[in-house]
């Protein structure tokens, strides 16, 4: 009988540092990263639609409406089952349904990451991961926090086993991650 996989779900408001946590885990623990938005990005590409956050949210709503609330969770379940790694990171957990579905296929840990709105806004501008991020105003950025996909995030973060404070430096964030992981028995790669 094979051991159940471990899934680390990362939850946080836009530009709080979810990707940073996932990248760090990948580097130090070789955990592959899956995002609920992977399937959305591929579909937007095929439909020749710009991969803006707005389009991702709309497409996500379209898919949930036509194919059921847990559609993106199911797609990721399959991704988890197909992955050869025993520990997998899922970036961008947003709904109760996401958590339920991930718990169905793995030993699940919800980790939150948070930072002040102004800090997140500045970081979003710098990284410009999505086309519109470089030039948006603080007001527009805050509006995104109110979109359907983010409203549940704050509430759900309360369920996290641990929420990392990402208002400071990378080192400060990494220290917190290392501490938590060794506490739950997940070992680092050999140096």
């Amino acid at each position, binding site marked *: 009988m094979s051991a159940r996989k471990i899934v680390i779900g990362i939850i946080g408001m836009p530009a709080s540092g979810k990707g940073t946590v996932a990248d760090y885990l990948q580097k130090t623990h070789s955990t592959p990263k899956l995002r609920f938005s992977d399937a959305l990005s591929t*579909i937007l590409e095929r439909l020749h*639609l710009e991969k803006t956050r707005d389009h991702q949210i709309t497409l996500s709503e379209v*898919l949930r409406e036509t*194919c059921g609330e847990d559609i993106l969770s199911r797609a990721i379940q*399959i991704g988890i089952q197909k992955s050869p790694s025993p520990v997998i990171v899922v970036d961008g957990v947003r709904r109760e349904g996401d958590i339920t579905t991930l718990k169905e296929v793995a030993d699940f840990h919800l980790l939150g990451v948070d930072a002040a709105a102004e800090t997140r806004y500045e970081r979003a501008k710098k990284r410009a991961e999505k086309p519109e991020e470089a030039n948006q105003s603080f007001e527009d950025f805050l509006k995104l926090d109110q979109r359907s996909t983010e409203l549940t995030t704050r509430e759900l973060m309360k369920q996290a086993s641990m929420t990392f404070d990402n208002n400071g430096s990378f080192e400060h964030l990494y220290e917190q991650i290392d501490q938590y992981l060794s506490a739950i028995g997940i070992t680092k790669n050999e140096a």
Partner: protein
Amino acid sequence: MSSPFIIGLVGTPGAGKSAVTDYIIQTYGGSQFRFSDYLSHVLQKMNITKSRENMIKLSVILRKEFGEDLFSHAVASDALRSEDELVLVDGIRRPEDLAAFRPLPNFKLVAVNADAKIRYDRIKHRGEKVGETDMTWEAFETTERAPTEITIPEAMTYADFVIMNDGGVEELHTRIDEIMKEIGIAKK
């Protein structure tokens, strides 16, 4: 690299669109792009059953949210990037599907039609989809009025060429050759 010549196909069920496409590709070369492939891809990516019902549901809501010409632009973008000299675009059903194609200088729309009774007989004999062999005339007429089919006559009014496919295979091929000659495409 120059853009390919694009031939769009629109037609009523059982008129013989597949026969037209097959003959053109066999005789003139080229590749095919289908509107339905773009929907299939979405369903496949999300591991959703590719049922007719799901395809229609998804198509309606995607167009509502992203524009009625969503698929027109997606298909056109890919078709124009093709390395082939000739591209067939299949599955045009409504005027909005033509939005990205009509402005192109190297695009022609070909409508494929036939007498309703002839189309009905063909559908019954080919039994391509479940239930087609037993289809009654009334059921056939009802499908013609389905949301996905009812816009086809209007789309056909934009055609540059019409093929009335009431005869046999030879006649069909002759008519296709006529059209290709007029467009200026040589056999391969």
